[in-house]
């Protein structure tokens, strides 16, 4: 009896996703934790891990299909003894994209794309019924649009085995992924500004102690273990979340829940455009070295487009630093369902008054964008001051 592998919720507010590609085929052996598919959600393309051990028996959803959370993606034979006994555990005759096995059409809507190919509504529906990739067709309708007739022609002339393999559509896929991300960011940020009553606070503080501490620390360790200022910021935010309630959690169903764990998400700009904010898990409990290690790994994997679902869904608060872009301050937008976001400008040398004298100091402007449904400016001010206080005492980080 095969087990069902269902689409997990890859984010706190994810309702559905579009299957981009499969990393496994019928007959492949999978184990718990393996990345088996890529699914595009409104947070970007995400690797989906499987939590079953066994052999892939049948794949039920073809790439390009939009599926709701909980839909069965594949069948996995978990009773490996049974597989061995029958000799052949896979149903190789089953079509990769059996239309009858895809979820009910009612739940299927076209994915959100801004540069979408022109496919008529009727052709789109027909393509889904027939399992044809309408976006790859040359349209003959008005404006070069793909019509029902084009889809049906493609179905009748292309044998299933000749349908474009993932590799053949990879060229367009990367472009589509980027534009999908743009659309996802647009959707999330529009929703945020529509639904969340933001308030903004900023504070500029002297971070010379942190900069000095960092320089001396980095001088004493091998290059590979050197820290970035960002690691200090991440840790300071995480520690402040421990003592200031109302900033690390989720606003859902009309109410706020403080998250027990603090997972600080770090906004990472992608080279081709776009933005992701994967989490450094249990940030407050990690040493600075561990935070730094995670940060490095996240940035690398984010830019390679290989983030895990858990990392993208997890952040309880996000830090966005535009220090390398030489801006003074950032006024960031909260990512729903989170309730706060910290922006950091560049650390820069500025004239600063210390004990009645103007002296050059390293200063940083931190800003807070927070959800007024959850907290008020006074609490926000205390939270920002809490972060600045942690930075002022780098040894405590």
């Amino acid at each position, binding site marked *: 009896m095969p087990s069902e592998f269902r689409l997990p919720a890859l984010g706190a507010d994810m309702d559905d996703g579009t299957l981009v590609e499969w990393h496994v085929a019928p007959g492949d052996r999978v184990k718990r934790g393996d990345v088996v598919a890529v699914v595009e959600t409104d947070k970007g393309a995400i690797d989906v891990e499987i939590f079953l051990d066994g052999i892939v028996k049948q794949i039920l959803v073809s790439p390009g299909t939009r599926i709701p959370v909980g839909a069965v993606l594949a069948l996995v034979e978990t009773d490996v003894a049974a597989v061995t006994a029958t000799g052949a555990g896979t149903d190789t005759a089953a079509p990769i994209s059996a239309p009858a096995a895809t979820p009910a059409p009612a739940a299927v809507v076209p994915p959100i794309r801004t540069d979408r190919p022109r496919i008529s509504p009727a052709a789109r529906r027909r393509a889904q019924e027939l399992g044809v990739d309408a976006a790859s067709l040359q349209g003959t*309708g008005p404006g070069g649009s793909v019509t029902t007739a084009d889809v049906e022609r493609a179905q009748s002339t292309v044998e299933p085995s000749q349908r474009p393999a993932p590799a053949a559509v990879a060229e367009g896929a990367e472009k589509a992924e980027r534009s999908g991300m743009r659309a996802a960011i647009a959707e999330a940020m529009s929703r945020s500004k529509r639904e969340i009553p933001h308030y903004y606070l900023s504070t500029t503080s002297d971070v010379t102690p942190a900069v000095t501490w960092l320089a001396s620390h980095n001088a004493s360790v091998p290059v590979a273990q050197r820290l970035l200022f960002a690691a200090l910021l991440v840790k300071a935010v995480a520690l402040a979340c421990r003592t200031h309630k109302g900033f690390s959690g989720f606003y859902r169903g009309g109410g706020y829940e403080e998250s027990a764990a603090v997972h600080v998400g770090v906004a990472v700009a992608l080279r081709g455009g776009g933005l992701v904010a994967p989490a450094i898990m249990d940030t407050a409990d990690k040493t600075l070295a561990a935070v730094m290690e995670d940060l490095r790994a996240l940035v690398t994997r984010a830019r390679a487009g290989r983030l895990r679902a858990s990392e993208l869904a997890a952040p309880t608060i996000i830090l966005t630093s535009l220090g390398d872009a030489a801006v003074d301050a950032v006024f960031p937008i909260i990512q729903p369902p989170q309730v706060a976001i910290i922006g950091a400008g560049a650390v820069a040398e500025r004239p600063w008054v210390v004990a009645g004298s103007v002296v050059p100091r390293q200063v940083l402007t931190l800003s807070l964008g927070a959800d007024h449904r959850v907290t008020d400016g006074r609490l926000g001010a205390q939270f920002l001051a809490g972060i600045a206080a942690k930075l002022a005492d780098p040894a405590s980080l």
Partner: protein
Amino acid sequence: MTDPIRITYREAVKQSIREALDKDPRVFLMGEDVGKYGGCFAVTKGLLDEYGEVRIRDTPLSESAFVGAGIGEGLGGMRPIVEVMTANFSLLALDQIVNTAATLCHMSGGQFPVPLVIRMATGAGRQLAAQHSHSFEAWYAHVPGLRVVEPATIDDARGMLGAALACPDPVIILEPISLYNMEGELTAAAGTVRLDGARVHRAGKDLTFVTYGASVWRCATAAEALAAEGIEAEIVDLRSLRPLDDATVLASVRKTRRVVIVDEGWRTCSLAAEIAMRIVEQGFFDLDAPIARVCTEEVPIPYPKHLEDAALPGPERVVAAARRLFSDAQ
């Protein structure tokens, strides 16, 4: 049923009036110049001599007054047919039609339905210029409490009046001026037709024209031209503009997946806009191309023949709109 006979649209309307007068003593006709002059478009010519001035009544030139009188007669138990010379002039009676005829049944909790039939000539094509040629179908189709029909064929011209008189609600029958001279075969010699529901005027598989009134024939001409190119157009004649028959339109759209709406009204806030929206609401996933509209140019209808023709949704414009739904190349 008798054998088919060839008559004009005008004659078909006249026969329907005559039949109504013969069948029901409560029926009478009133309007401007309907008696001695025989009707502005000669529809009622000779009826005064046949039925006398009690049942064929000339009225003063006050649309508001005689439409209001018609409402009162209907409430009082008569079955008035009120003729308004053109849809343009009917605007003078808009208060009576919209504020009184359409509302009384509702406001009286169903106690006072208004069994009034208003016939009016509509549309352009006869060089009658901007004050006698307009199409206000959408204005009336907007109003709850009214039934609005527009016979496009000889059969409907002959049969709709009887159905309208049998209806307890106020019914507006719009008769296209340009069709009065049209000759055709009357297939159902004495039949009353149904008042609501659209009709497939021509069957086709590639494209649907949704239209009404005189534009049915513009579409018929366009469909012949398209057939020569291998495009088989279906024509849906709406017949009833309120209520609209969504089911017939959608059934055709599901079959052909392409729609051109041809409407002699102006495009902005038109019946064409309403029909297009209903198709999108109910048939979005059946469409293979954007919905196209061919309407009257947004100008007062010009007097000169060539300009009047240019303003109207003529067959050439309909054909061009249809071709664009197939490919850019054509």
